[in-house]
């Protein structure tokens, strides 16, 4: 018996038409969807492309620093428009780069992450020949601290570069000085300082400008400044003969909203000379995660290591061979306790692993020259958490941006 098979022929042609139409419709819908998707994708790509174009930084380097890379970083791009830069620092959000210039107008310049200029600033009431901004650092609120070798002062600005206050001596701020001599300061009052004029200027709201004799400037010679995550400040002081110390300002003092009672507990270590625990022009001091402090001992051509109590531990980097330093200047520490030291005469950045009991030279990057990735008397370095490195390339008039 033949089975009652339902074949195609059994289906009514009209039904088939409907099905066909449905299929067609589905296909069209799918096509539309695919088209729409494609369009969306295209838009996405276009948007990304535009973003990419507007931001010279390649995207991959946004990933956080790999946990155990021990290979040198690579050159990304340079920020021009700076005259003999010697110091570089980042805002707490790492979206701004602050640079000190020592040529031309001698300004502190602000750039965004892509290298576009955002502004510039300098100590009020000074001319270029009267100021010499060198190293700088930011605190967690974004305030910018700039040492000035001619003014013998640590100037403090808000993140936009508006003058905020000045630390004139280890136990004296400008606001404190003016306040003491003028029956207190009110919000809105302004003040300024110029060592060359030996005058302090102040203007109380609604009154005309007045001057005060400047306090004695010779108490110290602040040079390198670094502020760690806790807000603690490490400052090198190169006042000659008998000084040459690292000073430590506790976080409470630095972070305080007002500095009109500035009298931080004195804590300093080191002295002038070539022996152990002595410095010749210490340039910067940076802490590691274990509380040790590393000082670039410039004219002694070495790094000097200290424990958290201010006791001398050891020196390294002196002599010849791999990792030997010529003229160490600015330094930075990354999250893995790798110490980056800018060697001005060595014309490179030398990197040491200081996480163990003994420092370990890892690698150096850069060489002398004027091309991409080459240095001409570099002086300072700043690191961000995405693996970017900013190097002040003094005689090439630029900030070089490197990345992992």
């Amino acid at each position, binding site marked *: 018996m033949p089975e009652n098979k339902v074949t195609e022929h059994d289906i009514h042609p009209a039904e088939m038409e409907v099905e066909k139409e449905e299929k067609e419709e589905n296909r069209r819908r799918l096509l539309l969807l695919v088209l729409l998707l494609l369009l969306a994708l295209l838009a996405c790509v276009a948007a990304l492309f535009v973003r990419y174009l507007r931001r010279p930084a390649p995207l991959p380097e946004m990933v956080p620093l790999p946990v155990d890379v021990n290979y040198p970083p690579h050159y990304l791009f340079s920020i021009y428009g700076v005259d003999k830069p010697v110091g570089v620092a980042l805002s707490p959000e790492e979206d701004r780069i602050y640079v000190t210039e020592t040529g031309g107008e001698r300004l502190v310049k602000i750039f965004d992450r892509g290298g576009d200029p955002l502004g510039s600033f300098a100590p009020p009431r000074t001319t270029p020949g009267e100021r010499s901004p060198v190293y700088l650092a930011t605190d967690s609120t974004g305030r910018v601290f700039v040492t000035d070798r001619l003014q013998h002062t640590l100037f403090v600005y808000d993140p936009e570069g508006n003058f905020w206050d000045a630390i004139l001596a280890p136990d004296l701020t400008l606001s404190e000085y003016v306040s003491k001599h003028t029956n207190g300061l009110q919000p809105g009052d302004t003040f300024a300082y110029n060592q060359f004029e030996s005058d302090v200027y102040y203007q109380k709201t609604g009154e005309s400008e007045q001057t005060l004799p400047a306090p004695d400037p010779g108490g110290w010679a602040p040079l390198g400044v670094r502020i760690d995550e806790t807000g603690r400040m490490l400052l090198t002081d190169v006042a000659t003969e008998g000084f040459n110390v690292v000073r430590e300002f506790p976080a409470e003092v630095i972070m305080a909203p007002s500095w009109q009672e500035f009298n931080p507990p004195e804590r300093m270590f080191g002295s002038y000379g*070539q022996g152990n625990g002595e410095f010749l022009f210490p340039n910067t001091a940076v802490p590691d995660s274990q509380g040790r402090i590393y000082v670039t001992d410039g004219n002694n051509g070495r790094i000097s290591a200290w424990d958290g109590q201010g006791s001398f531990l050891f020196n390294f980097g002196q002599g*010849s061979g791999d990792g030997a330093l010529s003229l160490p200047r600015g330094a930075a520490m990354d999250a893995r306790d790798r110490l980056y030291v800018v060697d001005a005469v060595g014309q490179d950045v030398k990197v040491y692993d200081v996480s163990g009991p003994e420092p370990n030279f890892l690698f150096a990057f850069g060489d002398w020259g004027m091309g991409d990735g080459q240095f001409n008397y570099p002086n300072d370095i700043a690191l961000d958490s995405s693996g970017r490195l900013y190097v002040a390339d003094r005689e090439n008039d630029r900030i070089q941006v490197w990345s992992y």
Partner: protein
Amino acid sequence: MKLKLILAIGLLTLLALPTGWALADNGPHGGYTATTDACAGCHRAHTAPAARLLVDTMPELCFSCHGSTATGADTNVEDGVYAERDFETEAPAEGDVNRGLKAGGFVNALMDTDFDGVATSVPVTSSHLNDGSTGTAWGNGSIGSGAGAANFSLSCASCHDPHGGASTTGDATYRLLRAIPIDSGAAIGVNVADEANKIYTVSDANNKYFGEGYPITPGNTWTAMDQQEREVSNWCAQCHTRYLADSGSGSTGSGDDIFTFRHMSEGTPSTCDSCHIDFGSPPTLRTTVGPEWHHNVECMTCHVAHGTTAIAGGYAGTVEWPDGATAPNGDARSSLLRADNRGVCQRCHGK
């Protein structure tokens, strides 16, 4: 290869020296000991001896320490100021920071060039070249040889030997001055004796540069005639050969543009009567005598060594150069002088 050899020999010699070998030369210049690697601050500290030689150019190297940031020295020669108090002369509680350097500055300087008792830090109007670029070494060469040596390349190391021990016998000299400046063509060499205490700044608290004594006696007088100041004149004259002139040789009829019309620039005057009517105390002086007449007349009486902020208006700004050139003129014709216009002349001669 040759350099390698020289370096190897240099290093060996230095290492062979006893640790106690110390020159009076300051900072990283000389006084090397075997225990510290004093070469590294200027030569690259790599393994290969050849790589240790500096690729480095001047003055960038020198400015890494002596520049406006003064990150490795207290003598800031760009701004012509000393970043510290002069501890040698002044108790730490006295004196001011940023006193003017004796040599002036290369970019800015802090000089009272109009004697009003005030100095402000402003850009220099004239200075010696220092970056290896070229100019005419005025008066270089013998009488009748023209305006001087053209295309003379000048850098810090033309005048200074960064290694110290720069005298003809290897002893320390004043400010590391080379006994024979590079390319000067001089044969014998002039050793300017080093000073015992390093005093880099002018003695006047208002940074008045005229009347600065050498080496240390402020207001150096004829009677305290200073040998060192004389030596510096002879030293400058190794490059500027024909600017050196003894007393009374003001107008020598030699036919040489430079030699013929130049001021006495070496030593004491031939006759005291130029200024004195008598020698009582106080002495009676001629009415033509200026306020600071009692000084030696040496190169450093009228000039600074690095650069000046003096202005040159009117006549002073238009004086022809020895080769007849009329540019640079105006303030740029200030010729490293210690005072505006012809202020240096008036200080001794009055008006």
